[in-house]
C-alpha cells in the first residue's frame, strides 16, 4: 500500500494526504462559515467589525484544523510552544518588515484610528479606507485608484481622519473698501440660511477677518453634513458671489494706486 509508505519518521503518505485533505476541508468550511456569518449579520453589525469577525473565524477554523492534524505529522502541539518561541525569533530577524506590518496591523485593528469607509489622509495619500488587512491598508483615492499602504507606514505616519458627522469648510471673500461690510455679512447670511444643508447648529460664522491691500477680507465658516459637504461647498461660493453682485457689493481685483511726483 502506497499510503502506508513512510515519508519521514513515522509519517506516512496517508498521514500527509489526511493533513492535506483536512486543511483543504477546513478552508472550505471556513469559507462557508464566513459567507453564512456575513449574510446573517450584514444588517446587525458594522461592516468593519463584520470583516474583523470573519477574519478571526476564517483563520481560527484553519488554525484549529491544523492543530488537530499535528499529531499525524508526529508533532506534539505542546512542543510547538517552545519551537514557536525560537521560530518567532528567527522569523522576526528574517522578515522584519512583514512582522512589523503584522504587529502594526494588530495595533491598528485594536486602536481603530480609522474605519472602513472613512475619509483619511496618510502622508501624500488621500481617499476612502477600503480595507484594513493584517499586513496592509487599502485606500481608494479620490481619483478612483487603489493604493496599498503597508501597515507599518500607516502606524508610523501622521494620519488625518476627516470622517465626522459634520464637516466645516471656509471661504475668504474680499469686498471693496467702499462697500458696507455689515451689509455684505447680511447678504451672505441670507444665502447660507436659504441653503438646507448649511447647518443651523453649529451656526455659520461670518466676520471681517483682515484689512487687505485691495479689499476688506470676510471669512465665512460653514458646517455641513459630511455626506453632502463637498456639494454644498461647490454650490455656495457662486451663490454668494451672485448675491453680492445683486446687492451692488463689489469683489475687487487686486489694485495698486501709484502717485507720481512732478
Amino acid at each position, binding site marked *: 500500500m502506497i499510503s502506508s509508505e513512510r515519508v519521514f519518521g513515522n509519517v506516512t503518505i496517508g498521514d500527509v494526504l489526511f493533513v492535506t485533505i483536512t486543511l483543504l476541508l477546513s478552508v472550505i468550511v471556513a469559507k462557508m462559515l464566513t459567507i453564512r456569518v456575513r449574510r446573517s449579520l450584514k444588517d446587525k453589525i458594522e461592516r468593519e467589525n463584520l470583516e474583523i469577525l470573519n477574519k478571526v473565524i476564517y483563520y481560527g477554523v484553519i488554525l484549529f484544523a491544523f492543530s488537530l492534524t499535528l499529531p499525524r505529522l508526529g508533532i506534539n502541539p505542546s512542543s510547538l510552544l517552545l519551537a514557536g518561541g525560537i521560530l518567532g525569533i528567527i522569523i522576526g530577524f528574517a522578515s522584519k518588515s512583514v512582522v512589523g506590518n503584522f504587529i502594526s496591523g494588530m495595533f491598528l485593528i485594536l486602536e481603530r484610528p480609522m474605519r472602513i469607509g472613512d475619509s483619511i489622509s496618510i502622508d501624500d495619500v488621500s481617499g476612502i479606507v477600503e480595507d484594513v488587512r493584517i499586513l496592509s491598508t487599502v485606500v481608494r483615492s479620490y481619483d478612483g485608484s487603489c493604493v496599498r499602504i503597508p501597515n507599518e507606514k500607516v502606524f508610523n505616519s501622521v494620519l488625518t481622519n476627516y470622517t465626522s458627522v459634520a464637516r466645516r469648510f471656509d471661504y475668504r471673500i474680499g469686498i471693496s473698501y467702499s462697500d458696507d461690510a455689515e451689509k455684505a455679512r447680511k447678504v451672505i447670511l441670507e444665502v447660507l440660511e436659504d441653503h*438646507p*444643508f448649511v447647518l*443651523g447648529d*453649529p451656526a455659520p460664522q461670518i466676520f471681517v477677518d483682515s484689512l487687505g491691500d485691495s479689499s476688506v477680507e470676510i471669512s465665512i465658516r460653514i458646517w455641513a453634513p459630511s455626506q453632502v459637504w463637498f456639494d454644498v461647498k461647490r454650490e455656495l461660493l457662486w451663490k454668494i458671489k451672485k448675491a453680492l453682485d445683486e446687492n451692488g457689493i463689489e469683489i475687487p481685483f487686486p489694485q495698486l494706486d501709484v502717485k507720481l511726483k512732478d
Partner: protein
Amino acid sequence: MYGCYDIPLNLTEAGIEIKVERDQTGKTTYGRSGILGEVSKTIVSRENPKVVICPVEPVNLPKRITRYLMIELDKEVLLGPKDEGTIDTGFPVEIGVFIAKRDKYSLIDVFSFTKQKFSLYGGVRDGIICRYWRSGPNLNKDKLVEGHLRLQVKNDTSDWIEIRKVVLDASEMKIVYSEDEVYSEAEMKILSRKVGEVRFRKPANGGTESIKLLKEMVVTAHQSKFIMEDGFK
C-alpha cells in the same frame, strides 16, 4: 389634497397641479407642476392602479441624509421635579404621492411646502444630523405645511428641567391625517438633566393612517426609542 384617488386624476391645490393619466396602451403618466417645480414619471402597470397622497415622515427632502427630526420649541418649557405634562408643538409636513396596487405601495413623488433645514445634535464626531424644525404652540393651521405633534413629557428626576429641543427617530413616526389636521404623538421620559428617552407612539386621535416610507430603513436590531444624551437645550 390627502386621500386615495382613482386614475385619471387632476388635482389643483395650493399652487400645484397633480395630473395622473392612463392611455389606451396601459401606460400611466404622473405629472406635477406649479410653484414647487415640475416632476414627470411614467408608470407601467397592467391593472389600473390607484393614487394615494398622504403626509410622510419629514426627512426625505431635499435628499434623505438622516432619519432624525429635531424640533426646537419657540418657547422653553420648564418641567417640575417628578412632574409630567403635555406639550403641543408642530412638525414639518412632507407629502408623498404613492401608486397603489392591491396592498403594495410605491412612492412616485414627494414634495413639501416647508423650508428644509438641518442641524447637528451632539458633537461633530459622534452626534447626529437632524432635520430641523422650529415650532411653537401656535401651529400653522395649514395642514399641508405643519402637522400637530402632541408630546407627553415625564420628568423622572428631582430637578427642574428646561426643554427647548426634542430629537425623534422619524422611522418610528406614526402619522394620521383627517379633514382638520395632520397629527402625531410622542412621549419623552427625562432620566437626568441631560438624558432622555424619546419615542413615537400610536396616535390616540382618529384619522387615516399615513403610509410609512421609512420602514425599509428599520433593521432587526433597531431601537424603537431615541436616547437624547446631549441635553434638551
